[in-house]
C-alpha cells in the first residue's frame, strides 16, 4: 500500500456514492430495538422499487440519540427518522421521492445535535464500520501515512504534547507526556495497549466508538506504536461487548489485508500487529496493572506503582496504555495539527469529551461536547431536562469513582479541574441525571455495593473497608444508624481513600463523600438517637455486616 493506492480507494469509494443514502444505525443500542430488520427491509424496499442505482442503504455506527432508536437518516437532506418500524421501510423509500413516511420525524436541528462537536465521533453514524473503504473515504489512514513517511517519532510525541490531549480513561494524565516517557524507556520490545474494558455502570462511550469506528482505534494505536517504538498492540475488551469485538476483528483483518497492519506498513520499516484480548468483565481489570496481569494470563489484581507501565508493563517491557477515546483523538490530531486541537476546550482541558447521557432525562444517548461546556447546557438544553415535569436534583459523573453534582452547581463547566473541585471527577464519561425522587443515601449505597462486589480482595482497606462502609450505609438506609455510625462511616471513607492499593479502593468512598457534602441532611434525617444518649434504651441495636 502506498499513498496513491490509498487515495485511489478513497476516490473510488466517493465516486460510488449514490444520490440518496439511508444511514441506518447498527450500534448496540439500536440493534437491541430491531435495527437489523429495519435495514434489511429498507434494502428489500429499495430493490423492489428498482432504486438500486439511486439509493444506498448503509449500516453505520451510533447516531447518538439512542433513546429514540432505531434511527435512520436520509441524505442528502439529513431527514431523521426515529423509532423506525421495519414495516415503515417502503414508505421511507417513497418519502425520498416526496411521499409521506410512516415514521416519526426527528429534528436534527435540535440542541441535542447542534450543540455537539464531533472529533471522536466524527465518523460515527456516517462511516460503515464494517468496511475499511468507508473509513478510508473519510480520510482514514492518511494520518498514519503522514506519520510513518514524513515525521520521526519525536515529532509525533511533540504534536501530542502541543495538542494538550489528556487521557480519557479517568485520570486525565497528559498523553504527550506518557508517550514521551514510554519512548524514552529503554527496551528492545515495547507494547501498546488499548484499554477497552469500560466497566463503569451506565457508561457506553467506548463501546460505541469501537462499534462505530474501529479503524480509528487501529490507526491511533499504530501511530502511538510508531511514536514510542512498539511493534505489538493489544486491545483489551470485555466479553460483554461481542459486537465491538466482532467489528474490531473484522477491522484488523481488513487492515492486514490492505497492508495497513503487519510488516513494512506504507513501505516504511515500521511493523505493527494488533491482537484482541477478551476480559471476563471484572471492573478492576480496567485498572492498568490488573489489566496487564490479565493479558499475561494471570489473575487480574493490581500491583503497587511505581514501577509504572511506561517503565515496566507487559512481561516487564515498557508499555503504553491508553483508553479507547484517547486513541480515537490521535488520528484527527495528526491530520489537523496539535494547535488545532489545543484551540478547542478550556485552558487545561483541551478538545472534546464524549458522555453517555442516562438517567432521568428526556434525551438519553451519546453526546460529544467541547470541554468547558456548562453542565446546564448538557442536561437542560441537549438532554431536554427531566421527563414528566420532574426537576433535576443532581448529576452523577465518574461512576463509582465519581460524585454527585447538585442542581445548584449546574453552571459548572465540564473540565477536569472544575469537576474535581466539586469532589467529582470527569471519569470516563458516564453521566447519570437524577430527579427529585432519588434518595442520595441509596445512590451512595448503590455505588458502594458495586465497589464492594468488584474489589479484587488483595488489599485490606478496600476488601474489608467497602464491606463495612456498605453495611453502615445499609444501616443508615434502614434508619438503624446513629450519629456514631455516621462518624465511623466518614472515618472509614478517609481511611480507605488514603490507604488502598489501587484506584478502585482509593476512589470507592467518592460517591459517599460527595453525597455527604451536598446532601448531608438526607443522611442525618435517617439517624436514630444514640442508644447510650438521653433517649436510648441502653441496648445497642444488633446487626451483622455481610458482603
Amino acid at each position, binding site marked *: 500500500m502506498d499513498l496513491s493506492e490509498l487515495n485511489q480507494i478513497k476516490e473510488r469509494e466517493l465516486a460510488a456514492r449514490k444520490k440518496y443514502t439511508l444511514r441506518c444505525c447498527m450500534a448496540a443500542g439500536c440493534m437491541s430495538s430491531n435495527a437489523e430488520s429495519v435495514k434489511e427491509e429498507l434494502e428489500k424496499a429499495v430493490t423492489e422499487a428498482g432504486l438500486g442505482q439511486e439509493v444506498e442503504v448503509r449500516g453505520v455506527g451510533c447516531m447518538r440519540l439512542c433513546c429514540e432508536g432505531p434511527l435512520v437518516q436520509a441524505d442528502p437532506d439529513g431527514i431523521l427518522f426515529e423509532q423506525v418500524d421495519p414495516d415503515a421501510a417502503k414508505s421511507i423509500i417513497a418519502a425520498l421521492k416526496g411521499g409521506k413516511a410512516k415514521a416519526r420525524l426527528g429534528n436534527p436541528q435540535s440542541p441535542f445535535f447542534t450543540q455537539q462537536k464531533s472529533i471522536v465521533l466524527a465518523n460515527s453514524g456516517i462511516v460503515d464500520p464494517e468496511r475499511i473503504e468507508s473509513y478510508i473515504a473519510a480520510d482514514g489512514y492518511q494520518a498514519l501515512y503522514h506519520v510513518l513517511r514524513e515525521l520521526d517519532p519525536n515529532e509525533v510525541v511533540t504534536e501530542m504534547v502541543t495538542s494538550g490531549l489528556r487521557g480519557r480513561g479517568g485520570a486525565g494524565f497528559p498523553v504527550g507526556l506518557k508517550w514521551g516517557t514510554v519512548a524514552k524507556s529503554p527496551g528492545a520490545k515495547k507494547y501498546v495497549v488499548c484499554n477497552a474494558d469500560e466497566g463503569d455502570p451506565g457508561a457506553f462511550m467506548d463501546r460505541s466508538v469501537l462499534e462505530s469506528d474501529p479503524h480509528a482505534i487501529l490507526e491511533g494505536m499504530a501511530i502511538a506504536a510508531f511514536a514510542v517504538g512498539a511493534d505489538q498492540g493489544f486491545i483489551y475488551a470485555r466479553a460483554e461487548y461481542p459486537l465491538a469485538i466482532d467489528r474490531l476483528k473484522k477491522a484488523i483483518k481488513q487492515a492486514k489485508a490492505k497492508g495497513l497492519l503487519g510488516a513494512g506498513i506504507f513501505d516504511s520499516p515500521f511493523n505493527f500487529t494488533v491482537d484482541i484480548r477478551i476480559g471476563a468483565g471484572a471492573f478492576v481489570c480496567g485498572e492498568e496493572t490488573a489489566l496487564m496481569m490479565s493479558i499475561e494470563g494471570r489473575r487480574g489484581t493490581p500491583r503497587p506503582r511505581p514501577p509504572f507501565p511506561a517503565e515496566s508493563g507487559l512481561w516487564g517491557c515498557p508499555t503504553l496504555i491508553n483508553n479507547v477515546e484517547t486513541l480515537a483523538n490521535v488520528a484527527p490530531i495528526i491530520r489537523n495539527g496539535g494547535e488545532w486541537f489545543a484551540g478547542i476546550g478550556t485552558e487545561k482541558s483541551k478538545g472534546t469529551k464524549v458522555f453517555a447521557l442516562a438517567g432521568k432525562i428526556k434525551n438519553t444517548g451519546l453526546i460529544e461536547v467541547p470541554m468547558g461546556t456548562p453542565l446546564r447546557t448538557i442536561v437542560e438544553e441537549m438532554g431536554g431536562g427531566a421527563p414528566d415535569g420532574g426537576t433535576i436534583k443532581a448529576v452523577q459523573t465518574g461512576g463509582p469513582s465519581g460524585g454527585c453534582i447538585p442542581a445548584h452547581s449546574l453552571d459548572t463547566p465540564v473540565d477536569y479541574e472544575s469537576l474535581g473541585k466539586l469532589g467529582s471527577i470527569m471519569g470516563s464519561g458516564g453521566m447519570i441525571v437524577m430527579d427529585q425522587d432519588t434518595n442520595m443515601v441509596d445512590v451512595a449505597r448503590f455505588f458502594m455495593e458495586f465497589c464492594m462486589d468488584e474489589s*479484587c480482595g488483595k488489599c485490606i482497606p478496600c476488601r474489608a473497608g467497602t464491606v463495612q462502609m456498605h453495611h453502615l450505609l445499609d444501616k443508615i438506609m434502614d434508619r438503624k444508624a446513629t450519629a456514631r455510625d455516621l462518624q465511623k462511616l466518614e472515618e472509614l471513607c478517609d481511611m480507605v481513600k488514603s490507604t488502598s492499593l489501587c484506584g478502585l479502593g482509593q476512589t470507592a468512598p467518592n460517591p459517599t463523600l460527595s453525597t455527604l457534602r451536598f446532601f448531608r441532611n438526607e443522611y442525618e434525617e435517617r439517624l436514630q438517637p444514640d442508644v447510650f444518649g438521653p433517649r436510648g434504651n441502653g441496648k445497642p441495636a444488633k446487626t451483622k455486616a455481610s458482603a
Partner: protein
Amino acid sequence: MAAITLTIDDKQVSAEDSQSVLSIAQEQGIAIPTLCHLEGVYDVGACRLCLVEVAGVNKLLPACTTKATEGMVVRTDTERLRKYRKITLELLFAERNHVCAICVANGHCELQTMAYNQGMDHVRYDYCFPKWDMDLTHERFGMDHNRCILCARCVRACWHIEGAGTKNVAGRGARSHIITDMFQPWGEAESCTSCGKCVMACPTGALFERGSTTGEMQRDRTTLEFIVTAREKKQWIA
C-alpha cells in the same frame, strides 16, 4: 549500586539505592508494622500496614515496595498512620472469625501480637461472622479459612520458595479465599509436596500442623529465610 542517605523519623541513615524503605528501617531498628511482608519472598504491598509518609508525596507509600531514594524524608509513626493501622486491624478482626481463645495460634499469632502492639483493644465495627470451612483433608496440615487474612504469604512461599504452585487465591473481594490446585481439597492436591513451607509462612492460625498443641505453634520462619539465603547468596546462614 550506589550509596544514598535519607531521613527516617528524624534519623539520618545511609543505605543502598536498591533497598526498600522497610529493609532500611529494619536495619536501623525502626519498627514498621507489617503483615504481608515475608523475608525471602517478593513483596506485594497488600496489607497496607507498612504505609509511611514521605515528604513531598501526597499519597502514603508502602515501605515494603517503595525503593529508597537520595534525600528522602520518611515518617513511619505519625498519628494519622497509627489511626489507619488500628482501623486496618479492626477491619481484619471484623472480617472473619478470629476467636483467639480457641485458636491454635493463640500466643504465637502475628495478627494478635500486632493488635496488642498497635493498641487495638476493641473492634468498633459489626462483625461479619462469615461461614467458612476448614480443610482437614491433608494428612499433616490443616487450613482454617476463618483465620485467614489473605496476606498470600503461603501462596508466595509455595510458588517461589518451594516452586510447587499448589496454593492460589480464588474469588474476589470479601469472597477471596486460598485454594489448593484447581480448588481440590488439600489432601487431593497432586502438586503439593507436603513441604510445609506455607505453614511456616502463615502469620495466623489459618495454616497449622495437625495434632500440634497451641504451645507447639511456634512458626519456623528462619527455615524459609535459610533456604532463600542459601539459594540466592550461596551462604549457609540464616
